[in-house]
């Protein structure tokens, strides 16, 4: 046995066997020596006679052989017992454990001992298994989940969490029940909204969410999940939610967002200066410029304003795609929102020879809107109409109530689009073949406009006819129709924001970052 190696039961028999054999051999030598001495003393044979040595050798060989055989028979039960103990102790062995039903063990009386060893071992194992199961109570599914990034949450028929696997994003409430520790994005259908829809309209339903963050107020490390949920009405497991922790995959994207935010900051510095000093020129050179110089200055102003819009679009698209984009809905008048950019829009249209006709009545119902986000929607749609209309073309911006919404339309009589491209129009980076030939653009303005409008709970659509023009229509909820919901919402402290916003001036929004 090597130094430090744990002694094994199976070694005992061999060691004992070797010791016994050595004793037998020594005893046999001693016995034969005594016999030879007696023969010499008595003079029966002298040590010079060959027959003397032949008898000595024979006595040694026969004696040792007989004793070794006898020894084997005597200690065989010990071999069997040792082998059985070695087996139940879990020691590795090339030989099979002794079978207690073999006749020889019955004959030599070893069988009861072997049976006892096996019986005691079985009872002990069974007891241990039961004991382990009783104390740890770990179902196989949880043991399996602990080796993966997946979690399971089950809701009962009362929509209470009845089961959450060990690493699921839930936290206890004061009443002892559990609640989800997830922050569903307001731009998508939230879990609560989906559940309400299921309860009213569905017997069975399934829903997928991606990039759902844990609540930032949670004490745990932030995590990001992809989630699949299934709903089965009135079942004991009414909702089964399977969550895949994708933090490691999505985190690098979050770092990209930081880079884009940083890059936007760097771009915005020069834009601030260019726009600012052009504004200074526009004011201080009023009346001193020729008509042509004024036109040239106007083009500079429009271009710098567009540049600012592009930077905002890039930043907002990045945020929207990473589920960081949020809007803050407050009570707003549409004519006020448009009024804040009316001069800029007039300049953009006038610089390229378009006529902008705006008719947004002051007495329209107030809407629930994130003012700055909606100015970006206006800017994108008007810019789009300018780009895709002809010189001298009229762009009409109108608004009217429609149920619980106010509908805003931006119509041009420009080049229009064939039916085949309309359904792709709000996809990111999409630009029709004709657009690419005739007009410069990135294809993200309509994409982010759709995202913004849908984040408000509204819709955006387009009607277009080739060579006749296009009409983009978006809707925003009337404030009174969602006021209670906004005030009651505990997601994002909206009620507090509405209250605080009375004295808050912003050209950008608190929760959009």
């Amino acid at each position: 046995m090597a130094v430090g190696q744990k002694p094994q039961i199976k070694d005992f028999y061999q060691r004992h066997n070797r010791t016994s054999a050595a004793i037998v051999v020594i005893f046999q030598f001693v016995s034969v020596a005594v016999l030879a001495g007696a023969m010499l003393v008595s003079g029966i044979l002298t040590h010079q006679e060959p027959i003397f040595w032949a008898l000595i050798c024979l006595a040694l060989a026969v004696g040792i052989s007989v004793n070794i055989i006898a020894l084997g028979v005597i200690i065989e039960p010990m071999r069997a017992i040792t082998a059985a103990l070695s087996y139940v102790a879990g020691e590795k062995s090339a030989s099979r454990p002794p079978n207690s039903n073999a006749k020889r063990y019955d004959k030599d009386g070893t069988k009861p001992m072997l049976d006892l060893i096996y019986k005691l071992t079985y009872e002990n194992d069974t007891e241990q298994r039961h004991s382990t199961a009783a104390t740890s109570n770990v179902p196989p599914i949880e043991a399996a989940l602990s080796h993966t990034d997946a979690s399971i949450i089950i809701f009962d028929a009362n929509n209470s969490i009845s089961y959450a696997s060990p690493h699921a994003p839930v936290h206890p409430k004061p009443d002892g029940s559990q609640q989800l520790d997830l922050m569903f994005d307001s731009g998508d259908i939230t879990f609560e909204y989906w559940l309400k829809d299921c309860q009213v309209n569905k017997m069975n339903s399934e829903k997928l969410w991606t990039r759902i963050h844990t609540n930032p107020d949670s004490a745990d490390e932030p995590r990001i999940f992809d989630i699949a949920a299934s709903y089965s009405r009135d079942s004991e497991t009414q909702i089964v939610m399977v969550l895949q922790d994708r933090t490691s995959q999505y985190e690098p994207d979050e770092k990209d967002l930081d880079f884009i935010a940083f890059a936007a900051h760097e771009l915005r510095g020069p834009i601030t200066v260019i726009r600012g000093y052009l504004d200074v020129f526009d004011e201080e050179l009023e009346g001193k410029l020729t008509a042509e110089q004024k036109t040239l200055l106007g083009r500079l102003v429009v271009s710098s304003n567009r540049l600012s819009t592009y930077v905002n679009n890039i930043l907002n698209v990045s945020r929207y795609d990473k589920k960081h984009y949020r809007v803050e809905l407050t009570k707003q008048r549409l004519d006020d929102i448009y009024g804040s950019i009316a001069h800029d829009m007039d300049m953009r249209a006038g610089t390229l020879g378009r006529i902008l006709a705006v008719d947004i009545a002051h007495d329209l119902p107030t809407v629930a809107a994130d003012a700055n986000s909606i100015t970006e929607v206006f800017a994108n749609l008007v810019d789009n109409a300018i780009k895709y209309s002809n010189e001298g073309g009229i762009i009409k911006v109108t608004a009217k109530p429609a149920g619980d919404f106010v509908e805003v339309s931006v119509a041009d009589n420009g080049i229009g689009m064939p039916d085949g491209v309309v359904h792709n129009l709000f996809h990111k980076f999409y630009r029709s073949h004709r657009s690419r030939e005739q007009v410069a653009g990135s294809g993200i303005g309509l994409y982010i406009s759709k995202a913004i409008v849908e984040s408000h709970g509204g819709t955006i659509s387009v009607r277009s006819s080739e060579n006749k023009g296009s009409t983009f229509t978006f809707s925003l909820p009337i404030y009174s129709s969602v006021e209670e919901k906004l005030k009651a919402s505990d997601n994002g402290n909206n009620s507090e924001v509405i209250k605080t916003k009375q004295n808050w001036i912003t050209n950008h929004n608190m929760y959009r970052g």
Partner: protein
Amino acid sequence: MAIKTILCIEDDRLIGEMYVRSLRKAGYDVDWMVSGNDGLVAARNKPYDLILLDVMLPERRGSEILATLRSKEKDMIPNTKVLVLTNFEQDEESRMAMEHHADGYLIKADITPRKLLSIIESLETPDN
């Protein structure tokens, strides 16, 4: 409340000079500091009616200055209005600005000097 004195804390010299020039031309008494520490000292030493506060400042961030003036030393500038100006939008900064009772949070690239003047005028109206 009439606004007459303004402290502009802005480290970008081109932007700072642009704001200061327009504000002085409009008749305001304007002091301009280019670092966080100098800005905080100036705010402590003189009761300004309005502070234009950049966020990304050397030595001390705008958020720190706002927290100091509005929380720890709130008795020193009870009537001073604060407009936070930044080009680096961050959730935490804007949340902090609101929590510490800033009177506005503005993206510099989206406003021109004339727009800034109209915002300052709006701060003087009874509604604000």
